[in-house]
């Protein structure tokens, strides 16, 4: 589905991602964990065309999409739920969802998908005429995910969905991530909350200052002493 090889990304002169290899297969839920500033968000931005690629290649569904702009990738089924949600605060929930379906022209399908999103997040249906800016952080996260689903993605990139949320809300958000994955959407999840991310994922990558330091089955990583020491707050 997605193959990154020797991918390098930089902000001006600062190298943020130093040649990483990541593979996400069809139907998988893969997580990318690591500390603040490790380059996780940068990686996602590079994949979806929001940041120019310095070196290396991105192959998506067998096609080299390195350097493709974001708006084109969305049309090819690659959707991003940006860090900090990025919902349109002045628009209602309904309007936000409509915006998610911007690239689609099949009205009936869009209407059906709106109902699908409401079924997934009943909370959003209750408040559908409310502006997104008045929602709580957790509700905004749900809306951001719902909005991304509206574009009928084949690969969903989630950037820190748990950030700034109350523990109960985090639990809920992760439940919906699993639900979305069950619907057959391939997911690449970036998280600081390594334990939760590894618990729900099939495979995981650990990133440290711009490089992948560990990779493997999520369950194996959960029991890896190095991971436990560095990210799960346990003594080695």
């Amino acid at each position, binding site marked *: 589905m997605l193959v990154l090889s020797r991918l390098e990304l930089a902000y001006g002169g600062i190298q943020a991602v130093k040649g990483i290899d990541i593979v996400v297969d069809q139907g998988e839920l893969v997580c990318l964990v690591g500390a603040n500033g490790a380059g996780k968000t940068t990686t996602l931005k590079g994949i979806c065309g929001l940041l120019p690629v310095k070196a290396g290649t991105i192959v998506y569904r067998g096609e080299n999409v390195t350097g493709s702009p974001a*708006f084109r990738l969305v*049309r090819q089924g690659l*959707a991003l739920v*940006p860090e900090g949600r990025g*919902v*349109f605060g*002045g628009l209602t929930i309904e309007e936000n969802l409509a915006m*998610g379906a911007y*690239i689609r022209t099949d009205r009936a399908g869009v209407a059906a998908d709106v109902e699908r999103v409401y079924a997934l997040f009943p909370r959003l249906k209750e408040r559908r005429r409310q502006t997104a*800016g008045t929602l709580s952080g957790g509700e905004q996260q749900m809306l951001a995910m719902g909005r991304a689903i509206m574009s009928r993605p084949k690969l969903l990139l989630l950037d820190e969905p748990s950030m700034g949320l109350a523990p109960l809300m985090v639990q809920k958000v992760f439940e919906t991530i699993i639900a979305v994955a069950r619907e057959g959407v391939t997911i690449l999840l970036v998280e600081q909350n390594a334990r939760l991310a590894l618990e729900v994922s099939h495979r995981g990558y650990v990133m440290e200052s711009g490089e992948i330091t560990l990779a493997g089955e999520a369950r194996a990583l959960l029991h890896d002493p190095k991971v436990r020491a560095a990210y799960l707050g346990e003594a080695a």
Partner: protein
Amino acid sequence: MPGLIDARHRKRLAWAGVVVVAIVLAILPFALAQVGTAWVRITNTAILYVFLALGLNIVVGFAGLLDLGYIAFYAVGAYVYALLASPHFNLHLPFWIILPIGAALACVFGVLLGTPTLKLRGDYLAIVTLGFGEIIRIFLNNLARPVNITNGPQGIAQIDPVRIGDINFATTQQVLGVAVTGPIKYYYLLLLLMIAVVAINVRLQDSRIGRAWEAVREDEVAARAMGINTRNIKLLAFAMGASFGGVAGGMFSAIQGFISPESFGLVESVMVLAMVVLGGMGNVWGVILGAILLSFVPEILRYTVEPAQKAIFGRLLLEPEVIRMLLFGFALVLMMLFRPAGIVPSSVRKRELESRRA
């Protein structure tokens, strides 16, 4: 079924409203001419400002790009008309050829301004656009040497009026025993153009493009993640806004018969922006109202303030111009306090302001 009857009743009322407005607009110039032909001219200018305000509203209201040099596009349209229909180059093309050329060239200038400023927002964009407006004006002022293109500060005179067949828009004609003056003819032409411009704007507001502009205004990164080509959609806003300015400029040239760079200063840009803000950014009807208010109120003041002062104090204490700016500033302060989203706010803008305050 009271609901159904109600809906039908309301529809009938709406149609009645449209008919009333149409009749008023149709007989308006003759009524105004009774007061004085000057008022017909003032109305024509007001309609030109409606074009300008609606054009700027696309850039500022819909796409959220603050443009302080908008009058430059008006200037481009005006000069295209003046150069192609005056003794200056001895060209006398008909207006229906020049107007599209003016719109197209203004559109090119819009893209020219938009391209280097794609990454700028807010204050920074405002500064660059302000500079752009001044550059155009200064060019117009100085393009008289070595080759005389714009005739510099003297401007271009004897610009051809609009002619359609045998109808010359600069002269008075007798139609069915009624004297139809030039300004009245222009009024009807402008009215037709205005109906087209308003229709385009109303359609834009609820279109896919309108939604894309809304998204860009709210959050550009998120807009890109929605699959919106933000570069093209912003350039489109600049281009469309500029073309409306170009059309307005062309009509201005034809009506005035004389233009000079002086007419296209920064104050004009600010004035048009004030119309958009006062009326209600992003709301077509609000913007129209803003344009009409800000074009008429100063004129009404001009005709009332002087006589009033003379009647009360026996002499002129305050120039109408001074009072105009005073009232204008006062109105803007009041508006920011009580109706920050404009007199007729756009629903989205209003919600944005409220959610930001909350």
